[in-house]
């Protein structure tokens, strides 16, 4: 007897978590609950990455999505009071179009994806060395550009949300 049955079971649980969490983000009207369930979806997704043998990506996933992006979105939720109301999802003009569009594309894609029947091979010894080698050799230039993008985003976010301090503005005028 071996542990072979564990992987499909874990995969099934994780995929239920991912899909249910994602659906709840779209369907729930309580926005804080949606944000927390989004974090749950991201965690289940990290579990899937571990199943695929990409532990480093899983760690980045939790670090960036759960630790940073969810918290940022919660910040946004707390700073903006709103009443999404019951009309948020139903009875609006885009809903039928959205349903038709999504169904028309999603069902063929989901069916098509099952043509990939072979099991993914598991690499030995983790994905960290290979990933690091790729990032810092073949993809060194995109990596630098990505860092410039992050810097630009940071400066842009600060510039957009900066409120002029009235006291400082008065000081500047006096000078």
């Amino acid at each position, binding site marked *: 007897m071996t542990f072979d049955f564990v992987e499909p079971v874990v995969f099934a649980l994780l995929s239920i978590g991912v899909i249910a969490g994602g659906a709840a983000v779209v369907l729930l009207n309580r926005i804080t609950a949606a944000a927390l369930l989004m974090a749950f979806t991201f965690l289940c997704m990290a579990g899937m990455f571990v199943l695929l043998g990409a532990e480093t990506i899983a760690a980045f996933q939790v670090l960036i999505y759960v630790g940073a992006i969810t918290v940022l*979105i919660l910040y946004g939720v707390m700073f903006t009071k709103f009443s999404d109301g019951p009309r948020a999802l139903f009875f609006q003009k885009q809903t039928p179009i959205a349903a038709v569009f999504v169904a028309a594309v999603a069902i063929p894609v989901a069916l098509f994806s099952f043509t990939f029947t072979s099991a993914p091979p598991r690499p030995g010894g983790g994905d960290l060395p290979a990933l690091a080698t790729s990032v810092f050799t073949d993809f060194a230039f995109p990596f630098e550009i990505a860092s410039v993008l992050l810097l630009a985003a940071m400066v842009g976010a600060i510039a957009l949300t900066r409120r002029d301090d009235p006291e400082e503005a008065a000081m500047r005028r006096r000078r």
Partner: protein
Amino acid sequence: MTVPLGAYVAVSAVLFFIGCAGVLTRRNAVVILMCVELMLNAANLALVAFSRKYGSIDERGSVFVVFVFVVAAAEVAVGLAIILSAYRNRPEVNVDEIHQMKG
């Protein structure tokens, strides 16, 4: 018994279209941002799964996931900044109501 590649891709596709439906139907700007994050994440899963099958020696697919992370972080920071500064001008996060720029 192992999980076939198609199962991962199917989960990824389903999550992507859930996010897509959310972007199309929800009116709250913050929720739209969340749904975009879901779509990006679904793409990540597909990338990692295919990287396992076709490039497990140099992890090229996973490298692309790292760049998606960078873009997602930048996007959420700037997106929230835009939402907050729009909210400051007029306390409203319903994207249907933000139309002052309309000619």
